């Protein structure tokens, strides 16, 4: 066959794909997907370790009861059906029949009960299962979760890396699951891929599990996660074809460059449930001016959000007006967005009683930032606030623990921060605003020391409202009040992007990005 003829064929094939849409393409079996991981996971068991580094390989090793499509609709996975009781106080899961762990033993309702208990006891996100009082196991394939109050967040908490089904006969042997040796080697999972190798700081090799409970899947033979901590090296690896895929990439300069590469597809789809937000947090409990909400509002009016979105983020991230990610169905777009208005800012500051002094300054504040990538925002804040007479000094970033200790013990005025929603507001949003969660020494608790009984009441209602429409209303109100009180000033989503080679089919573009099962992912040709 001549080269010319080949390319003609290719062109025809391409034409037919365009004509029939992407569905016309049949997934192919086989191949090794080379994926990058930006951090070394502590271990591979998501039941006792949250975070994206464990989550990516963890969701391949372990299956959850449910999975989600791009529209936030739950889909059957290890559970073929899931039903609420009428009072919303119990959830019945019917497991897929014939599913087995990687050691060949059957996956039963006992394992589900054990997994729920393990997550309940060890996972940092206590709000996921704290209302589960017991898990009943009437038969091998039926698990009934009993709740002390209705808990709509349960569905999301049973997906992705949040509820991995782990074998009771392995992890229930009496050792502490958090430091169980089989979290890093000889992992016995329930997912589409099993562990072949885990070389710390180097790579994780997963192999297809041939007896996976979905017939014919996964398509790939192997997934190799290469641990590459340097963002520029990852970008070069993608560009020269050494890597097929990278997720959670946030370096805008690299992303902008890779967008021009014709062998790569760059997208920000897939991060709606992870819900990463950038915001400027205020220590509302401090004695200073920040305890006055007019001052916080004035600060928001003085910062040109468009500059952050267009110049700092180079148009790669989205406007976020509230504490709920704009990709969430619960997002309320109809709140005050604090567009740049220096007159209003000056008026608010005057009204709050902070007149300009002889030197033109009203008062001084400090600003920190919790991530080297938000340095530009911190410096921009200083420049912006100088215009309204607030003198800001920027504390430079040393490393994470230094920052965390300072912020979590409330020794700050303002800080830029990056916080994830983790699917449902109950899991990742309430913690920032709940007056019960002001806990010195705990980072990403309510470090703003924000107290508003109305907000507390709304969160309590939202947590147990089963009717989706009513729930949406409750959270709309919640976001409206917060946008008025402004304990933090939300600016944008993190510019997280998934970058993949044109050879990759069915990339993980659902709501959980690389924390989704890769049983559908395949390599073309």
């Amino acid at each position, binding site marked *: 066959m001549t080269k010319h003829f080949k390319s003609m064929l290719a062109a025809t094939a391409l034409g037919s794909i365009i004509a029939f849409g992407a569905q016309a393409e049949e997934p192919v079996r086989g191949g090794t997907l080379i994926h990058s991981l930006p951090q070394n996971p502590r271990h591979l068991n998501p039941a006792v370790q949250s*975070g994206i580094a464990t989550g990516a390989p963890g969701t391949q090793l372990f299956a959850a009861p449910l999975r989600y499509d791009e529209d936030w609709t739950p889909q059957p996975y290890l559970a073929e059906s899931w039903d609420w009781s009428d009072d919303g106080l119990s959830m019945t899961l019917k497991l897929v029949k014939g599913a087995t762990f990687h050691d060949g033993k059957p996956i039963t309702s006992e394992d589900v009960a054990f997994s729920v208990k393990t997550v309940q006891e060890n996972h940092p996100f206590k709000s996921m299962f704290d209302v589960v009082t017991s898990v009943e196991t009437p038969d091998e394939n039926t698990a009934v979760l009993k709740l002390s109050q209705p808990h709509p967040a349960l569905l999301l908490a049973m997906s992705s890396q949040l509820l991995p089904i782990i074998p009771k006969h392995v992890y229930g042997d009496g050792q502490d699951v958090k430091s169980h040796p089989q979290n890093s080697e000889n992992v016995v999972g329930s997912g589409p891929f099993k562990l072949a190798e885990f070389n710390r700081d180097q790579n994780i090799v997963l192999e297809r599990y041939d007896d996976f409970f979905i017939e014919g899947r996964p398509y790939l033979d192997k997934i190799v996660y290469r641990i590459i*901590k340097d963002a520029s090296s990852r970008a070069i690896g993608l560009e020269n074809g050494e890597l097929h895929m990278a997720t959670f990439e946030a370096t805008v300069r690299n992303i902008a460059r890779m967008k021009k590469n014709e062998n790569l597809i760059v997208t920000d789809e897939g991060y709606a449930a992870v819900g990463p937000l950038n915001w400027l947090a205020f220590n509302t409990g401090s004695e200073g001016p920040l305890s006055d909400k007019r001052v916080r509002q004035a600060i928001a009016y003085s910062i040109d959000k468009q500059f952050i979105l267009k110049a700092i983020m180079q148009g790669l991230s989205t406007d976020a007006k509230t504490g709920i990610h704009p990709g969430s169905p619960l997002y309320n777009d109809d709140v005050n967005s604090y567009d740049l208005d220096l007159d209003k800012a000056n008026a608010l500051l005057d009204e709050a009683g902070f007149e300009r002094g002889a030197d033109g300054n009203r008062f001084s504040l400090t600003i920190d930032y919790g991530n080297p990538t938000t340095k530009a925002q911190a410096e921009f804040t200083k420049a912006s606030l100088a215009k309204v007479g607030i003198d800001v000094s920027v504390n430079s970033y040393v490393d994470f623990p*230094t920052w965390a200790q300072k912020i979590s013990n409330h020794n700050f005025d303002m800080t830029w921060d990056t916080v994830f929603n983790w699917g449902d507001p109950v899991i990742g949003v309430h913690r920032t605003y709940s007056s019960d969660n002001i806990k010195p020494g705990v980072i990403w608790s309510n470090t703003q020391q924000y107290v508003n009984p109305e907000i507390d009441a709304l969160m309590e209602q939202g947590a147990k409202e089963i009717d989706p429409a009513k729930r949406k209303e409750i959270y709309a109100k919640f976001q409206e009040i917060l946008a008025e009180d402004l304990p933090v000033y939300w600016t944008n989503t993190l510019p997280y992007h998934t970058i993949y080679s044109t050879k990759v089919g069915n990339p993980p573009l659902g709501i959980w990005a690389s924390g989704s099962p890769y049983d559908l992912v395949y390599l073309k040709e």
Partner: protein
Amino acid sequence: MAIFMTILQRLLYAALLLIAVLVLNFTMMNLAPGDIADTIAASMGGADAEMMEQIRAEYGLDQPFPVQLLAYVSRVLSFDLGYSYFYNAPVTTLIFEKLPATLLLVLVAQSLALVVGVLLGVFSARHPNGIANYFVTLIALFGYAAPVFWTGILLLIAFSLKIPLFPVAGMSDITVDGNFFVKAVDVAHHMVLPVITLGSIFLALYSRLSRASMLEVLGSDYVRTAKAKGLSQREIVLKHALKNALPPVVTLAGLQFSAVISGAVLVETVFSWPGLGQLALTSILARDTPTILGILFFSALVVIIGNLLTDLVLRAIDPRVRGRA
């Protein structure tokens, strides 16, 4: 006999030094703000108060400082470097897992830099006013002045991206299968860029120093005598001058070798080389105290052994040193 006394004396100093290193490092780590509980919370995307307390208790961070210090020193003296809660593995396992990669990288880079550096130095000392001399000086200064990070990334862009000759990261390609030879070639292939990056700093040092040292020696009386005797230029340089010009270079090489880890941190990070440098960096940022202290302890050992060996080598090549204890 004198040599054994020297070694014995050195070993005694070494033991005292190691204890000082332990106490000092432990104290410094304790002064750093934040702790492992914060970084574990970070790797989790959050944590609750109970969990933070539990982690602090498991690490003994809730104990008063003198108790922690005493516990640690006595543990190390019984040859137990402790357990890394962050990596979920014993520290000794971690160090020995990472050591071969670092040794390989540093030894190859050092040896190449030493040989090439001395050759360049000798060459430019013999032609102190030629164009080639300026060229060598330029390379040396560039290698010394350019930040390792920058050199590394630049090499990656040039030889991984624009001209894809070498892989971007890691030490081996997991998809390469074959016998030992095939795998060795694969590792060597991965090593080229990191070795050049790391070697460029050493090269600069060695070539500058050996040039200066050589120039000094070439101007000395016995070289003039040798010339007067009618020896060829080649014989003078190789037999007489070089041997006398080497001691400073050997001393420097010994010192540099001791700095195995500090030199490797940046290079290992840029090239994702799975060595001790990366481990050190990660555990410092994670406040993983047992691992950091383990690495520092181990580095102190390397420095002490390195200095001892340097002394012995110097004795071998320079008779003047032998007289002194």
